[in-house]
């Protein structure tokens, strides 16, 4: 795939989720979701959210998650001790946007150290559409994976 090419709808992306954005079951201490804030753009985000393309690497799902993690790490992303990986289906993210009349696209943005880096484009720049953020938090997280090694 070439730079800025759109990811296929049947593919998946993986994003780092820090402790501050996780929803944790108070009794079991398991991470059960993410807060709407996980999808908020910060001023330094330059109009898109960073993630990694899961299908870039070969292997089964678990192997792909591990490889994505190491690519993100090699790309300079720092992981905290309680960070997790949130996996989302491209089609569902786009569907959430469509419900709120927002065109969300996920484009490949490879860097020299992370060839599977992607950007989630189309999220409201002023974070005004909280309905969309709530919907994304509720519907678009397909799986929460723990990071493969202790960091």
């Amino acid at each position, binding site marked *: 795939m070439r730079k800025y090419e759109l990811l296929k709808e049947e593919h998946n992306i993986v994003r780092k989720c*820090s*402790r501050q954005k996780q929803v944790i079951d108070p009794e079991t201490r398991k991470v059960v979701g993410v807060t709407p804030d996980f999808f908020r753009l910060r001023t330094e985000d330059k109009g898109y959210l960073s993630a990694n393309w899961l299908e870039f690497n070969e292997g089964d799902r678990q192997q792909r998650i591990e490889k994505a993690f190491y690519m993100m790490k090699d790309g300079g992303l720092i992981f905290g001790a309680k960070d997790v990986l949130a996996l989302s289906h491209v089609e569902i993210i786009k569907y959430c946007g469509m419900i709120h009349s927002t065109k969300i696209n996920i484009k490949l943005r490879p860097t020299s150290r992370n060839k599977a880096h992607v950007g989630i484009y189309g999220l409201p720049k002023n974070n005004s559409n909280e309905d969309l953020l709530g919907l994304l938090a509720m519907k678009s997280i397909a799986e929460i994976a723990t990071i493969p090694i202790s960091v």
Partner: protein
Amino acid sequence: MLYATSSPEDFVPSKWMASGHDVSVSLSVKSETKEVDASLSSLAKKSFPILKTAPLEEQLYSNKASLIILTSQLGMHLSDDLKRYFYNEIDELLDIQNFTNGDSLINVESFCGFLNFFIYYHNLKKPSLGVNIESFLTATWVGNEGCLTIEFLPGNYVRSILSKELLEVKEFDNSKSSPIINIYRGPLTWFEQAITAFDIDKWYKNAKI
């Protein structure tokens, strides 16, 4: 001035300021809450100053200390179990081992609002706590059909995002159903009234004894 300010005006959305809301005025109605609110405001002003040039570890320590002291000052209004839970959550959210790029210190005024919320609507279940990109504390309760996230803004204001799946839709699945999303922005004392139609008491409230 090297100290990070915790003045409410720095955090309140400008549109509220423009519309003439006086955020320093307590919005609590119950007399107990009024007293607590007053004491919280004065305590918040006495919180540890955070030196922006200090190493991150020191900033986290000062922030953590302020929040733990605030929680302990309100000991009489909160159960021991809840206090312990809040201490642990604060500890985790501001632990240097967990703190990475994109994380924020917790705004003390926001934390005051959170404590006020728990005192005003007593008998609440333990939420999952987080911090949003604006440094405001978030509390999330998960129910069978969705979840409720409240962001605590300074001046006893809240912004809540409620996502609730319609039961009949849930039975058919599917990942492409669209839940009801309700957004409330306003004083914390009006929160319950604003969401009463959604019948989610059991998500965030303990059963009455």
